[in-house]
């Protein structure tokens, strides 16, 4: 047995140091691709335990990979070079709401959805709402800077973080930011840590911003005969002075997949639909709803559905949530991408996806948070078909290329991880990546914290096959 493992066991109760093969395999994957066997899984429950693991790992140069509940779609927690998976999911949960300050302080293991539930008890809301909020930990959300449909109006995770407690890769505890809305003291390390994908530190506590919960909500579902029209409708709404809380897009393939999976009465013949949610005061909503309807008609919507009850609205949103499982019925493997473009370029992105689909003979469907330009093109394939997966790799590469060429970004909300690392330079340029690497090197001189993420090894390529 290696000595570092013995050292760990001196500090962490043995029941939380997992070395059996079955346990190691259970932490070898996330919700993306690839499987890497760690040498041990260490389940930490206190800040001091994180400190002792990182100090030991730094001294002995053992890689450490922080992991929440492993719902990551970009490979963030994968133990690509072996070593230790640092599981934070079993940390005791604490959600302290300060209603008068409109803030909440949480431990990293708290499920994101639960923060919102606690906030609602005080008439408040935690705005970020990634689709995995009921299962993902806030620690993981902070590391990956998660988004969600409400990102359109309220921004992503980083826009709601006031302060952090972080253990550095060398095992020191620091605090960044604070508890106030305004805070301009020094460099903004909070924003640097959030979205750093666990490469700069392990977050052990966070203070988050809450906001008043909107009084009421109004949903609309609008059908279009042409995809381009849907894109235009989105732009036009957003420049009209109305800011919906959500504007979600589904193409025809997604609509049909949902209807074939569990029918909810979506318009099967529409080329695309846009589902809109407005939030605010009931009186304002009446006016805004009317305005949105006018815009939609003007752009050339073929149908507008205004649900009459909360249940009817819920049905529409449920249909949107069914997209992901429904399209998995087309083919078993789902490569879920995260290309984001300026909002006006959504129709162009859709055209490009169509070209890529034909060129590489792969199934691609598109849906997502179109209101903020964040689309999720999904390539549907079969992992067991090596030849097909090769074509998928090429198609995915071209999707990223298209996003960047249209002035967009590699990732709107999933992070870079292992999946997009090979493409980083194409967005940031050589010097841009080098500046980021310098930051990483100064924070983590021995490179022990979550290596293999964000920055590609020389010659690294996107691989979706088991080789």
């Amino acid at each position: 047995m290696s000595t570092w493992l013995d050292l760990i066991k001196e500090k962490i109760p043995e029941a939380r140091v997992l070395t059996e093969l079955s346990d190691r395999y259970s932490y070898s994957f996330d919700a993306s691709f690839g499987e890497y066997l760690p040498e041990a899984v260490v389940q930490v429950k206190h800040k001091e335990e994180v400190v002792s693991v990182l100090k030991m790992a730094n001294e002995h140069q053992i890689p450490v990979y922080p992991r929440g509940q492993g719902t990551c779609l970009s490979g963030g927690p994968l133990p690509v070079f072996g070593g230790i998976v640092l599981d934070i999911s079993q940390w005791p949960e604490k959600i302290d709401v300060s209603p008068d300050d409109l803030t909440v302080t949480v431990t990293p293991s708290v499920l994101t959805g639960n923060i919102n539930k606690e906030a609602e008890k005080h008439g408040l809301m935690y705005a970020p709402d990634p689709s995995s909020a009921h299962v993902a930990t806030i620690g993981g959300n902070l590391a990956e800077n998660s988004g969600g449909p409400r990102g359109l109006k309220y921004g992503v995770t980083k826009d709601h973080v006031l302060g952090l407690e972080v253990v550095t890769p060398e095992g020191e505890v620091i605090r960044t930011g604070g508890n106030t809305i305004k805070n301009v003291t020094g460099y903004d390390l909070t924003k640097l840590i959030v979205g750093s994908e666990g490469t700069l530190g392990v977050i052990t506590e966070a203070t988050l911003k809450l906001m008043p919960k909107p009084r009421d909500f109004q949903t609309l579902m609008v059908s279009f005969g042409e995809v381009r029209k849907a894109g235009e409708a989105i732009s036009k709404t957003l420049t009209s002075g109305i800011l919906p809380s959500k504007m979600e897009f589904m193409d025809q393939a997604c609509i049909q997949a949902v209807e074939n999976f569990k029918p909810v009465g979506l318009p099967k013949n529409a080329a695309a639909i846009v589902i809109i949610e407005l939030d605010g005061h009931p009186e304002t909503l009446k006016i805004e709803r009317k305005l949105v309807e006018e815009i939609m008609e003007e752009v050339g919507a073929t149908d507008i559905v205004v649900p009459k009850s909360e249940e009817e609205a819920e049905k529409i949103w449920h249909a949107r949530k069914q997209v992901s499982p429904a399209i998995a019925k087309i083919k078993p493997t789902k490569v879920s991408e995260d290309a984001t473009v300026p909002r006006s370029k959504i129709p162009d992105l859709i055209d490009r996806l169509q070209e890529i689909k034909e060129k590489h003979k792969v199934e691609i469907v598109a849906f997502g948070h179109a209101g903020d330009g964040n689309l999720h093109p999904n390539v549907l394939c079969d992992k067991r078909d090596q030849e097909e997966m090769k074509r998928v790799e090429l198609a995915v590469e071209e999707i990223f290329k298209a996003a960047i060429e249209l002035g967009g970004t590699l990732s709107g909300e999933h992070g870079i991880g292992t999946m997009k690392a090979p493409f980083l330079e194409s967005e940031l340029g050589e010097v841009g990546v080098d500046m980021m690497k310098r930051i990483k090197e100064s924070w983590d001189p021995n490179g022990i914290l979550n290596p293999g993420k964000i920055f590609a090894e020389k010659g690294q390529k996107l691989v979706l096959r088991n080789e």
Partner: protein
Amino acid sequence: MSDLQVLQDKLNYDKTFDCVQCGYCLPACPTYETMERETHSPRGRINLVKMVAEGKATVNDLESPIEKCLGCMACTTVCPTNVQYGEILEGTKEVIDEQKEKTKRRQQMERFLFDEFFPSKNWMDTLGDASWFYQKSGLQTMAQRTGASKIAPLHIEEFEKVLPEMPSPKRRRDRAKRYIRKRPSTAKVAFFTGCIMDSVFFYSNENTIELLLRSGAEVLIPEEQSCCGALHAHTGKKESAKELAKQNIDAFEKENVDYIINNAGGCGAKLVEYDHLFEKGTEWHQRAVRFVEKVKDISEVLVDLDHLDFQKPLNKTVTYQPSCHMTNVQGVTDAPLELIKKIPGVQLKELDRPDFCCGSAGIYNVVNYEESMDILDVKMEDVCGVAPEGIVTSNPGCLLQMKLGVEREGLNDKSDAVHLVDLLMEADPQ
């Protein structure tokens, strides 16, 4: 076919690809919550099955994670991609059962339990007469005789405390096989009595018959019926489960009934999936499909017949602990609540997490006692929050487990667990 291909086939390797590893099952899984590691979550278990099928891990590595699964199927109701976890689980149990190097004693013990004990009417009668856990000790005697005495500690004394009163052997043998109403009947119902229900909870079975009669149904009890086979299938003995299914299909085909009813969530779940045991297109599959179409839980039939008018108000607060198999496999959720709400004077307070398993799970609480008690503790915390005077359940295993929970929390003088049919009868329906 190579050995690995054979293994892949048995493990339902193909079905593991339906899992996209999203992790949405994690919050639903009781063992993930109490055992605190991914290895004991549905996603972790499916991944391990895959690893074994790919030759990266051995069947041995799978054994504990699979055996510690309750089989409550809560994961299947939240799974967005509809993974057939039940089939993966049963296939894997079969492989483990085949490959396990069992001691001769354990083999004899299992042969006795599954081939003789559960499927035997005589044994079940003896069990009922002497009481379930006395019989458990009888079982031990038997085990000793067959040289199988060194089985896992069964914590019999714990369960013995919570057993209901047993009927006399005479009363049991005197039960009719056919209850015909004097007035014209609205339905013809065959009653699947179940092993444990008919031995340990004999009075609940009598109440079930009475409720059906009062609802206007004619009730038959086919004599050749046997054990449903759920416990066999859940321990990887698919062939035995199949034989039992055939026997039951045969027994219930003899009369043309409208419903085949049961009052045990776990049995019902097996009965409604009899068609899964046989290959499509075969004669047995067709017969199984016809059988399955008639299978209903007692609560559904009582709601359908809608003839009960409760005379006696029961002034108390109750909560309802649904059987996992009734909720997650049979999909029966509303009917029991509807019936409880009809009883005058009963205040129904729902649990915070009714769909969290109680930890009984067939014989899980006997073979994995410690793990089962950890799960029961989570359940009882929820129950204590509601502080009911009665806990209503719909499965014998859950009923015993909840009684044990009440005992463990020291709530005996404040609360009790009852089967739904007993609560309904207490309110004197006419």
